[in-house]
């Protein structure tokens, strides 16, 4: 199971890098979304996938047998943060499209000399 997850994570990272290298801002934002999905799944996988072990301590199950709850807590935090950042990024992209009239990163390259 961990192997399949690793392949999936690798694919997500690959797709994210591909999208982030494109010129269109909206593709870049989707790329950042995929990148954080990949990182979150990595966190889940690296914490050890529980398999058949129960998610919470039940009667008759020793404490060492139940699935590690920490990765889930970490992921929840990380998801909330990436959700907030992505929504901020979308608003920023829209606002800068209004103001600058383009979403092409090539045209956003200028420095203060090119004002």
């Amino acid at each position, binding site marked *: 199971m961990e192997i399949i997850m690793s392949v999936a994570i690798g694919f997500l990272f690959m797709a994210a890098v591909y999208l982030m290298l494109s010129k269109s801002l909206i593709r870049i934002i989707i790329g950042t979304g995929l990148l954080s999905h990949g990182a979150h799944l990595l966190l889940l996988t*690296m914490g050890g996938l529980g398999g058949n072990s129960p998610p919470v301590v039940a009667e008759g199950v020793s404490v060492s047998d139940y699935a590690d709850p920490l*990765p889930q807590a970490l992921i929840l935090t990380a998801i909330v943060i990436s959700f907030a*950042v992505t929504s901020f990024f979308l608003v920023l992209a829209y606002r800068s499209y209004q103001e600058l009239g383009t979403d092409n990163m090539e045209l956003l390259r200028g420095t*203060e000399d090119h004002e």
Partner: protein
Amino acid sequence: MSNLLLFPIIIPLLFATILMIFPKRLKLQRMIAAIGAGVTLLSALVLLVKVNADGVHAVTLGSWPAPFGISMVSDPLSALLVVTTSLITLFVVFYSFPTIGVKREQSYYYPAVIFLMVGVNGAFTTGDIFNLFVFVEVLLMASYTLIVHGGERPQLRESIKYLLVNIISSALFVAAVAFLYSVTGTLNMADLAVKIPQIEETGILTVIAVMFLVVFGFKAAIFPLYFWLPGSYYAPPIPILALFGALLTKVGVYAIMRTYTLFFTMNIGFTHELLGIVAILTILAGCVGALAYFDVKKIIIYNIIIAVGVILFGVAQLNQPGVEGSIFYLLHDMLIKAALFFLVGIVAVLFGTTDLRKMGGLIKTYPVLGWIYLVTAFGLAGIPPLSGFPGKLLIVQGGFEGPQFWGSIVILATSLIVLLSAVRIFIYAFWGEPVETVPLKKSVFNQMFIPTVILVAITVVFGVGAELFMPFISGAGEVLLNPSIYIDAVLKE
């Protein structure tokens, strides 16, 4: 243990929340922001005195036993940094009154500044690596707001890049945390410091250590990850730039300092040598930039990068003078960068431009400003007895005692370049033929000038009275060099 160490985080959080209720009430906004920063500074000072008297403070939230709950730890280093952060935020708030503009002030400027302080203080205080990630995100969120605040065209353009770089580094941060957790099974820094020496496979840990170096390197702007900094920092107005230049990169520097002294010490021959080499390259890259531009903001921005290199070189030596020098230089750099940006801001307002070639002759009309600037520039370059000197001296000494003596030579040589880059502003802006300046009301000038002078005075006291501050610095260095003090304080409550 007392909850005192949480106050510098909770007080600004409270004040920032209150500030968000009435954005349009200008006077009230200014007053509450100043009071919030002031109260935070007071609580941080009390904390520093307490920590210095009774040793490392630690609180584990929710009364969980130490490695399971989230630990907040205040050792002398983090207490010193929290005090400096609160001090600089207070001055930035005062400096913002005349410079930032009423429109920005009425659009949640002060809440964002105070929230930034929440994140920075939290990142300096936390004792848990995932919690560090969370606090870094808090301060990044506030910095996103500040960098785009006002929505001018260059700001929007640069914010996109700033945001993208930080999202990538945050994703890498999560990935690095995941790897660390899978190898060690813990994220509490003190617990990591216990578990890591027990692991025999040091190869994988070295890889993780370098991953963390990349993650924190993005924030700290080390070579070659500093590429985003000059462009992004150039966009926002001066008070925000001063806040960023003084605080944001230092969070990355602090994180490297903490992790590379506390637990990533299993393969010093590789990781710390790498850190030393990268630090020297950072200094050289910064020097090139500092000499290449004719723009006052750009010159000081590249000086941020140089200072990051100098501090990290001291950390890489991992001996007493090196680490103590780094701590001293870190505090000095936070203060002096804020002061320099304030001064450069005044100069830029007076000329209505940041281009050095369009400036000149200011010493005739504003002599005091000129001499204050010169003192600050000398402090930046580390001319004794000003505040840059003791830190640099210790770092260079640390370098000569360690294997990377050539690094110390580079630092000594580049000090001259730093001096040249800062004095160039003096030569162009203050000497030469007078250029017509923008008329400025005396009261507005004083409002900008007084916080600046006080901040410069503090840096001078910090340099001349270095002997007074050395007990604090060596206390901080002792904890960094003996991780067992830190571990005992957290785990054996």
